[in-house]
């Protein structure tokens, strides 16, 4: 069996998006900035996409900027807000400990430039407290950035409450909605954010294309200088085939959302119930307030990379937050932030399903994970110590 269970990393393009990509590349080869007919036809397609995405997200087309994806959108939103704040003497940036590196590393860079960065903790449930955000905001605050849904443990953050709070306090609010858009309802007016980042490859669109929403009037400066594309905020000839494919993928995901969510929730219930039967393991993140496709577990006594390699041998493609998979010495900052100690965080497994996965596949996943965990535990000195009482179980 061949099971792709890593949809949070990226998704396969849907047929409609693939067709739209090829069609656009063939028919609309003009440069949307050119004055001639081919260029103007490309310009029309571009405007049409912007309008369609605006309708889906609940904003004005003028407020959308096409980018190379989630990372660029996050970088541009945060940098723009920070620099605009600094001009008014506001140099405090508030975010959370569980953000994606696209946000965290941008904040780190700004910190080196002299900004004060506050990363709020999350609870064991992997959710930030709105009251913590409120307490952190002061007159020096330039920006609050809180992700819509977490990429590792799938927890959904109270972004609408945080949006309302920021509006009340007159502070700019950015949300990284890369994992949410196309999977759960996202309406910009309801969130009341000033910036929102999304990425097409997370909802069956192409890689390397995304959107930055910036509210009309919100500070925005280009990261990439050059031509006057994207209202002068993002230079570079637009990747029209990718933008059209993204638009189609978003329309398809949103049209299918209710049905997909039902399927995914059912599969998630089955997967969580099945994996929970393995001894000394725990689900990461809140059981209810999570993305329907995300199931993340820690298994005591084993290490995640070897788990992934053995699952891959069985045809299962998954992900882990262990140090040895991330290429750093520490396990995932998200798992540490929800209170998983290092020993346990190394033994994490993230399974992110898509609507094309089946019950049969979930049953195979459960059986395979059980088998591999048991196999690895049998060669683990940590597991032996736990079993023989020389070490205390944590999970």
């Amino acid at each position, binding site marked *: 069996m061949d099971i792709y269970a890593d949809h949070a990393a990226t998704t396969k393009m849907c047929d409609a998006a693939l067709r739209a990509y090829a069609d656009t590349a063939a028919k609309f080869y003009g440069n949307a900035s050119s004055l001639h007919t081919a260029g103007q036809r490309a310009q029309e397609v571009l405007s049409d996409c912007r309008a369609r995405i605006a309708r889906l997200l609940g904003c004005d087309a003028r407020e959308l900027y096409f980018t190379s994806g989630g990372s660029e959108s996050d970088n541009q939103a945060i940098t723009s807000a920070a620099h605009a704040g600094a001009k008014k003497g506001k140099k405090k940036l508030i975010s959370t400990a569980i953000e994606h*590196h696209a946000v965290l590393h941008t904040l780190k860079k700004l910190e080196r430039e002299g900004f004060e960065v506050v990363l709020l903790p999350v609870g064991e449930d992997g959710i930030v407290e709105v009251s913590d955000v409120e307490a952190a905001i002061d007159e020096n605050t330039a920006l609050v950035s809180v992700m819509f849904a977490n990429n590792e443990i799938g927890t959904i953050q109270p972004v609408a409450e945080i949006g309302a709070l920021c509006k009340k306090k007159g502070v700019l609010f950015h949300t990284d909605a890369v994992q949410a858009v196309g999977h759960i309802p996202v309406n910009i007016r309801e969130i009341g954010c000033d910036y929102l980042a999304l990425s097409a490859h997370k909802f069956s669109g192409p890689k390397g294309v995304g959107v930055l929403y910036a509210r009309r009037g919100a500070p925005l400066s280009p990261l990439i200088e050059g031509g006057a594309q994207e209202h002068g905020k993002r230079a570079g000839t637009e990747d029209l085939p990718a933008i059209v494919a993204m638009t189609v993928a978003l329309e398809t995901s949103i049209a299918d959302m209710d049905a997909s969510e039902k399927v995914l929730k059912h599969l998630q219930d089955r997967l969580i119930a099945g994996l929970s039967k393995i001894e000394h393991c725990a689900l990461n993140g809140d059981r209810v307030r999570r993305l329907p496709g995300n199931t993340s577990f820690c298994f005591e006594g084993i*290490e995640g990379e*070897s788990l992934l390699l053995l699952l891959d041998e069985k045809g299962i493609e998954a992900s882990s937050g262990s*140090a*040895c*998979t991330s290429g*750093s*010495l520490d396990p995932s900052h998200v798992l540490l932030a929800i209170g998983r100690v290092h020993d346990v965080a190394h033994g994490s497994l993230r399974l992110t399903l898509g609507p094309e996965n089946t019950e049969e596949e979930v049953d195979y996943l459960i059986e395979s994970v059980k088998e591999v965990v048991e196999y690895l535990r049998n060669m*683990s000195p*940590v597991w032996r110590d736990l079993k023989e009482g020389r070490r205390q179980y944590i999970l």
Partner: protein
Amino acid sequence: MSLYSEKVMDHFKHPRNVGVIEDADGVGEVGNAKCGDIMKMYIKVENGILTDVKFETFGCGSAIASSSMATEMIKGKPLSEALGLTNKAVAEALDGLPAYKMHCSVLAEQAVQAAILDYYKKNNIPYDEADFKCVLCAHEHDEHGGDDGE
């Protein structure tokens, strides 16, 4: 996955000498759960020869493969020769490891030394500290670098 050589994958999927020696003459455990890799090495010694070696490992693919390869390289060898085992030799025997995984092979070298040191101490055999610098000073070797992409 092509992160690892075929040799690494072979030793990872079919590790040699996994297990415990109940009446081991020496046992060495190195690494810690905090950093993500722990290796435990068990040895039997007769007339200065390593007659049996077994290991248990909590760790990534390269940690398990390095332990397995290290046991193969020292089994049947005199202690003096086993003490000369370096992580570089282990990595080479595995047809190489990714740079940021070299530290996992250091653990294999350390585990062998730790088990032999334990044997010397238990039997009051005098030893030269220089042979055990890897475990006695517990210094950091190659470290990881970089970040995840997604």
